[in-house]
């Protein structure tokens, strides 16, 4: 009896030691051993893709009836907007040309020239502690760790793990994420962080706001371009609340991201990492 029990203890300690080794080896986001993840993600991702597509179809049909009611009023409004915008567009074209010429004169380095790739979100993070989702493209499509992820509204996050056919994206409201940001109006540098409590409501916080900065609700926040991760000038969101802490030098604010993380379906990944790899 004792020998049997002793045997089990040996097996259990051996498994735990092996797992601890696995944890330490795969802890880094660029770890080579993350390849083992493909055993599960490669067969899983096409199926997830299919189910996500079916889910979207169902959502669309359900929403169709609701949307058709509001569509007429919205249509009128949009027509009016289109008319306005067309006149503005002419102005923009002229400015763009002018801008290009001036940039050429100054030999300005463009930050936003990388190749992009559109991706579908095929699954949300299965746990409760993180704000991570899976997209349907991986290292096969040239995506690498730390590539920025955007959509039409603004900044979504960055790629944290890459498998063969899929990759994981950490959104900016995750507690692990921090983004170097800039207040659009006053051009002050701040840091945007995910917060455990605000995350559940789809919000995040702005830290290190100096006390002499004029900051008010409704101000826009954009990426600063100071870090090498995110391109400059991408809209992040707007301030919904400014909190002045008693007895603390600087204050912080609560940000509502421009991206609606609950209804996110498609994103764009900028392939920064692959280009850097080519240079080496």
């Amino acid at each position, binding site marked *: 009896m004792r020998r049997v029990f002793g045997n089990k203890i040996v097996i259990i300690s051996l*498994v*735990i030691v092996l797992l601890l080794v696995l*944890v330490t080896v795969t802890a880094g986001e660029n770890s080579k051993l993350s390849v083992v993840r493909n055993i*599960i993600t490669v067969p899983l991702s096409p199926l*997830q893709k299919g189910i996500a597509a079916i889910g979207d179809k169902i959502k669309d049909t359900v929403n169709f009836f609701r949307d058709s009611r509001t569509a007429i009023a919205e249509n009128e409004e949009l027509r009016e907007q289109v008319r306005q915008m067309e006149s503005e567009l002419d102005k923009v074209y002229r400015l763009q040309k002018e801008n290009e010429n001036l940039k050429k004169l100054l030999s300005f380095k463009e930050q936003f020239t990388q190749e992009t790739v559109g991706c579908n979100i095929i699954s949300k993070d*299965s746990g409760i*502690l993180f704000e*991570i989702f899976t997209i349907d493209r991986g290292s096969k499509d040239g995506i690498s760790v730390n590539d920025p992820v955007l959509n039409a509204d603004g900044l979504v996050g960055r790629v944290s793990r890459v498998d063969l056919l899929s990759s994981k994206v950490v959104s900016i409201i995750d507690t692990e994420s921090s983004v170097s940001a800039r207040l659009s109006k006053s051009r002050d540098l701040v840091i945007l962080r995910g917060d455990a409590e605000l995350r*559940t409501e789809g919000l995040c916080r702005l830290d290190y706001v100096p006390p002499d900065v004029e900051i008010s609700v409704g101000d826009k926040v954009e990426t600063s371009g100071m870090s090498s991760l995110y391109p400059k000038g991408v809209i992040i969101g707007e301030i919904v609340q400014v909190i002045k802490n008693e007895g603390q030098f600087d204050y912080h604010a609560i940000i509502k991201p421009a991206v609606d993380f609950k209804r996110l379906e498609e994103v764009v990944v900028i392939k920064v990492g692959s280009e850097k790899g080519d240079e080496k």
Partner: protein
Amino acid sequence: MSKKILTITAVIFGTSLLQSTVMDYFVIFKAKPNLLVIVAISAALLRTDLNAAFIGLACGLTMDVLIGKALGWYGIILFLVCFFIGMINSKLYKDNPLIPVFFVFTSSIVVETLYYMVYYFLKGYDEFLFAFTNLIVPESIYNALLAFPIYKFVFYLCKKVDKFHYTHSRL
């Protein structure tokens, strides 16, 4: 032996597929059930210690892959929890529906709390109370609600597999 492993693989694969896709539509009060924990605990209630522990390990590692962090923490935690349940389950009356409900509820709390403890070890536990009351407990209640039907399903599968092995070992 091979049929057993095939069944376990198929169940884990199917569960992780459901977990990562369909479960997003079943979010109530920001809580989402974790099917892999329920399957692991249900299997642990029906198997002997080391068998149970390895099923827990497989479920845990799959959770690690789905979550996209370092591989192995859920693996270790579920391995130990399932081993413990596998050791004491011979003393339990398994037809009582409250047994899986109780074990899934407590194990979900233990597993998620331990993971939180490990993961935020260096970052501090400032937000622990919030995470515990708003994320971990609702998830565990949701898991407990789903425990009995999933337990019945795993029970049925176990019976099928055992019957297959029994008849084949006699031939």
